[in-house]
């Protein structure tokens, strides 16, 4: 099964790099949708069926849509024309910083004695998940619900702008 895992990792990281480096914003978003699907594939591989489908539903089905919508709404903005020298040096330093972070992380991971427990994937049914969510995690669930509601309202308020304040000029 490791070959599958390596394939998933390669596809995910590859699409993510292509998305982050790409010139075309829309291609980036679509490639990222692919990367998110790769992450979902990893969840599926690991046996977390529910999380995988939720990932696809939320990321590919909703978030990428909203992002695409935002891209279309802002498509005429005057940027992304040509990164100036400042942009290039910034990109270079950003990549270097990220590479440093990656180096630290990988080094740390490789040095740590992380032995995988050889057992099979822990089986978790939807019913179990539901029971957990309603039992020990009920408070967290409520908090997330409140957070989502607040975020929704906030997003609407932010995006709607101040249309009401405008004068009604009848031609």
């Amino acid at each position: 099964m490791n070959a599958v895992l390596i394939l998933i990792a390669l596809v995910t990281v590859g699409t993510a790099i292509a998305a982050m480096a790409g010139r075309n914003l829309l291609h980036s978003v679509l490639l990222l949708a692919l990367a998110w699907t790769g992450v979902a594939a990893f969840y599926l591989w690991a046996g977390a069926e529910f999380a995988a489908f939720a990932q696809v539903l939320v990321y590919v089905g909703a978030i990428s849509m909203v992002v695409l919508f935002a891209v279309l709404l802002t498509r005429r903005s005057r940027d992304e024309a040509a990164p100036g020298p400042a942009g290039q040096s910034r990109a270079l330093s950003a990549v270097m910083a990220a590479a440093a972070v990656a180096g630290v992380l990988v080094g740390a991971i490789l040095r740590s004695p992380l032995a995988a427990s050889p057992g099979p994937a822990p089986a978790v049914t939807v019913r179990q998940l539901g029971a957990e969510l309603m039992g020990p995690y009920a408070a967290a669930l409520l908090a997330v619900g409140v957070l989502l509601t607040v975020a929704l309202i906030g997003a609407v308020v932010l995006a709607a702008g101040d249309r009401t304040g405008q004068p009604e000029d009848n031609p």
Partner: protein
Amino acid sequence: MSPLQFCLIFSGVLFSVGLAGALARSNAILVLLGIELMLNAANLNFIAFWRYGPASAPATGVIFVIFSIAVTAAETAVGLALVIAIHRHQRSIRLQEATRLKG
């Protein structure tokens, strides 16, 4: 290299890619997407430890991921609303130009 280590490295690389994107790009939407990628990398860790780590409560990792996804959805919604608001005021979504708090 154990599978757990491989998964963690996978997640670490994904995190770095997201970080690089978030730092390097000036387009607000792409920065947001880089952050999304970093969050995903974190979620990968949850699942990896849930799968290979020492046995804990059976559903903990998955539940964390589910919460994380929900929070990410909220974050994206607010973030994109901000991007649109910035676009409305500045006619641009370059973060360098979004320097004023008041439109």
